[in-house]
C-alpha cells in the first residue's frame, strides 16, 4: 500500500518497525518460520518422557510400532498441531480486534469473547447435555458472536464512536457476568462439569485429532477473511472518516472482521478452552517488528503466535513434574505483565 506519508514524500512521518524494507521483513518471516519448526519439534520431543529428535524424525517418516512412536503419533503430534492452529487463530483474532477497535489493549480474552464462548458451552453442557467438540463448537461460535456484539454495543452507547477505554471496560463487565454465570453452572452441576474442568483452564491435551479436524475449517475460513480485510483495515487505521473518503466500505469491513474474530476465537476456544493474552501480546510484537502495515502484522502474527503458545505449553509440561500446568495458565502468567506495561505506557489508548 502506498501510505499517506509516502505520497507526501515525508519519510519521518512514516512509522516503521525494526525491519524497514520488505526484503528484511521477508528474511525475518523466514527466520520466524524456521523458529516455529524448531519449536514444533521441541514440542514433540519434550515432555514427562523426553524423546530424542532422531526418534521424532523416525516416527514422522518411517513409523514403526514402538512405544516412543506411539506416544508421538497419538499424543504429542495432535497436541502440537492443535497448539499450532489454536495459537495462530488466537493471535489473528487479537490482531483483528486491535486493528478494528484501534485499541492496543484489545484481546479476545479481555473483550469478553472467550467468556462468551465459555458461557455458551457451559449452557450447552448444562442444559442440552452436549459432550463432543462437534457440538461444543457451535455453542462457542454463538457465544463468541453474542459477546462481541454485546460488548461493542455497550461500548458504543451514546454519541461518538466506541472509545478503546469504554470498549475495554464493557468487555470487563460483560466478561465478569458471563464468567460468574458459567461458574454458577459448574457449581450447580458438578458431575457434568467435571469433564469441563480441564477445558475451562485452557489446555491443548486432547485425545486424538477430533478437536483439530472439527475446528480447522473454521479457523482457515477466519484466516482467509483476515487476509482479505488487511488492506481496508490499513485504511481504517487512519480514522473512519479518512478511510471512507479513501473508498473503504467501513460497515462491510467491520462486519467481516467481527465474523472473522468470531470464527477464530470461537473455534480456538471450542478446541482448547479459553486461553487469554496470546491475542494481546503477539500483534504488538509483530507491530514492533514490521511497523503498522496490517498485512505484514497478520503474516507475522500467524507465525509468532503458535511459537508463543507452544513454548508456553512446553513450559507447562516441564515446570511441575509429574503433573502438568495447563497452557492457559502459563500464557496468563507471561501475558499479564505485558498488559501492565502497555497500560503504563503514555499513549496506551491510541493506536
Amino acid at each position, binding site marked *: 500500500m502506498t501510505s499517506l506519508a509516502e505520497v507526501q514524500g515525508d519519510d519521518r512521518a512514516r512509522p516503521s518497525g525494526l525491519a524497514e524494507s520488505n526484503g528484511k521483513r521477508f528474511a525475518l518471516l523466514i527466520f520466524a518460520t524456521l523458529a516455529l519448526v524448531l519449536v514444533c519439534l521441541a514440542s514433540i520431543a519434550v515432555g514427562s518422557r523426553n524423546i530424542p529428535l532422531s526418534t521424532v524424525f523416525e516416527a514422522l517418516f518411517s513409523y514403526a510400532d514402538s512405544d516412543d512412536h506411539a506416544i508421538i503419533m497419538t499424543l504429542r503430534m495432535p497436541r502440537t498441531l492443535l497448539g499450532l492452529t489454536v495459537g495462530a487463530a488466537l493471535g489473528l483474532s487479537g490482531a483483528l480486534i486491535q486493528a478494528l477497535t484501534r485499541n492496543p489493549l484489545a484481546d479476545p480474552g479481555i473483550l469478553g469473547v472467550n467468556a462468551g464462548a465459555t458461557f455458551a458451552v457451559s449452557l450447552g453442557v448444562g442444559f442440552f447435555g452436549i459432550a463432543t467438540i462437534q457440538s461444543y463448537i457451535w455453542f462457542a461460535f454463538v457465544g463468541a458472536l453474542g459477546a462481541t456484539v454485546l460488548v461493542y454495543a455497550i461500548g458504543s452507547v451514546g454519541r461518538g464512536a466506541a472509545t478503546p477505554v469504554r470498549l475495554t471496560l*464493557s468487555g*470487563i463487565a460483560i466478561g465478569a*457476568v458471563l464468567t460468574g454465570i458459567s461458574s*454458577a453452572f459448574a*457449581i*450447580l452441576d458438578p458431575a457434568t462439569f467435571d469433564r469441563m474442568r480441564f477445558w475451562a483452564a485452557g489446555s491443548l491435551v486432547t485425545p486424538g485429532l477430533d478437536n483439530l479436524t472439527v475446528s480447522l475449517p473454521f479457523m482457515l475460513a477466519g484466516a482467509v477473511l483476515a487476509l482479505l480485510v488487511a488492506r481496508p483495515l490499513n485504511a481504517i487505521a487512519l480514522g473512519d472518516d479518512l478511510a471512507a473518503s479513501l473508498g473503504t466500505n467501513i460497515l462491510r469491513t467491520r462486519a467481516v472482521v467481527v465474523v472473522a474474530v468470531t470464527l477464530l476465537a470461537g473455534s480456538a476456544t471450542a478446541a482448547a478452552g479459553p486461553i487469554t493474552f496470546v491475542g494481546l501480546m503477539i500483534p504488538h510484537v509483530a507491530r514492533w517488528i514490521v511497523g503498522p502495515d496490517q498485512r505484514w502484522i497478520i503474516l507475522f502474527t500467524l507465525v509468532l503466535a503458535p511459537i508463543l503458545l507452544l513454548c508456553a505449553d512446553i513450559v507447562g509440561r516441564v515446570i511441575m513434574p509429574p503433573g502438568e500446568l495447563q497452557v492457559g495458565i502459563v500464557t496468563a*502468567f507471561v501475558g499479564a505483565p505485558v498488559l501492565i506495561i502497555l497500560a503504563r505506557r503514555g499513549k496506551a489508548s491510541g493506536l
Partner: protein
Amino acid sequence: MTAPANTTLMFGRPFAVLRLFGERVTQRVDLRGLTVTLVLLLLALAISIYALASGEFQVPVGDVIGALFGQATPRVHMVVVEWRLPRASLALLLGAALGVSGAIFQSLTRNPLGSPDIIGFNAGSYTGALVVITLLNGSFYAIAGGALLGGLLTAILVYVLSWRNGVQGFRLIVVGIGVSAMLTSLNTWLMLRADLKVAMLASIWGSGSLNGLGLDRLLQASIVLVLVTPFVLMLARPMRQLELGDDAARAHGIDVERTRLGLMLVGVALTAIATGIAGPIAFVALAAPQIARRLAGSAGVALMPAAAMGALLLAASDVLAQRAFAPSQLPVGIVTVCLGGLYFAWLLMREARRQP
C-alpha cells in the same frame, strides 16, 4: 433534634441539627441521606427476616420475630436462631463493612473505581490464604492473616504500578486485571500442587461464601466491627475534608498524612474481616458506595448510606445464592460478581449517554 436552625445556610438541601448534652455535641444531619439510609436498612432487615423465615423448613414471619425475642418452640428456635441467624447477620455486617471500606478507598483515591476488589485486594487475599491453607496448613486466624497480608501487598503493588503522574481510573483497572490474572495463574498452580481435600476447601473459600458460618464467626466479626466503628465515625468528617484536596484540608486544620493512614488502616481492616470470614466477595465494595451516593444525592461518597447499601446488597445476594437454585447453594461471591458486572455495564452506558 431540632428543625433547621439557620435557613440561610441550606445549600439547597434540607438538614437537621442534632444537639446533645446541652449543645456540647452538635452534628448536622443531612435529611435525604438519613432517609435513604433508613429506607435501605429497613429493606435489608426485611430481606434478612425473609432469609430467616424461608428455606427447606418454612417458618411463619410471626414465629421468626418470636424466636428472635426468645419466645418460640425449641425446634423453631434452633432453625431460626442457631442455623439461620448467624448467616443472615453476617451478610448484613460484612456487607456494611464492605460498603464502608469501598467508600473509604474511593474517597482516598478520589476515584469511583478505587475500591478494594478492583485494586487487586481479592485476588491477592486469595493467594495469601491459599499459601497458608496449602503450604502451611494454618488455622482460621492464620488464614485470615495470610489473606490480609496478601491483599495488602497486592493492593499496594497495583497502586504503585498504575502510578504515573497520579493514578488514572482506567489504568488502575487494567493494571488490576493484569495483576489479578497473574495471581489467578499462581492460585491455580498452588491448587494443582495441593492435596485434593485441601484444594476443595480452598476452592470453596475462594469463591466467597457465607455457607455454613456459625456463631463463632459472627462473634469474631462483631468484635472487630465494634472496635473499628468508633474510628470510622471519628474519621468520617476529616475524610470529607480530605476530598477537597490536601492543601485545602490542611488549611482546615486536618493532619493530612495521619488521617490518610488512619483511613487506610480502617478500610483494610474492614475488607480483611469480610475476606477472612467469607472469602473474596467482589463488587459490593465497588457498587455500594456509588449506588448510595446516587440515591442520597450527596457530593462525595457518604459512609452511612454506603454501609446500608452494602448490607442490603450482600443480604439480597445471599438470599438469591441460597434460594434461587434450592436445594443447590451458590457461593454468594458468584451472585455479587454477576450483579456487579451488570451494574458496571449499566454505569458505563449511563456515563456514555451523559457525555456531550
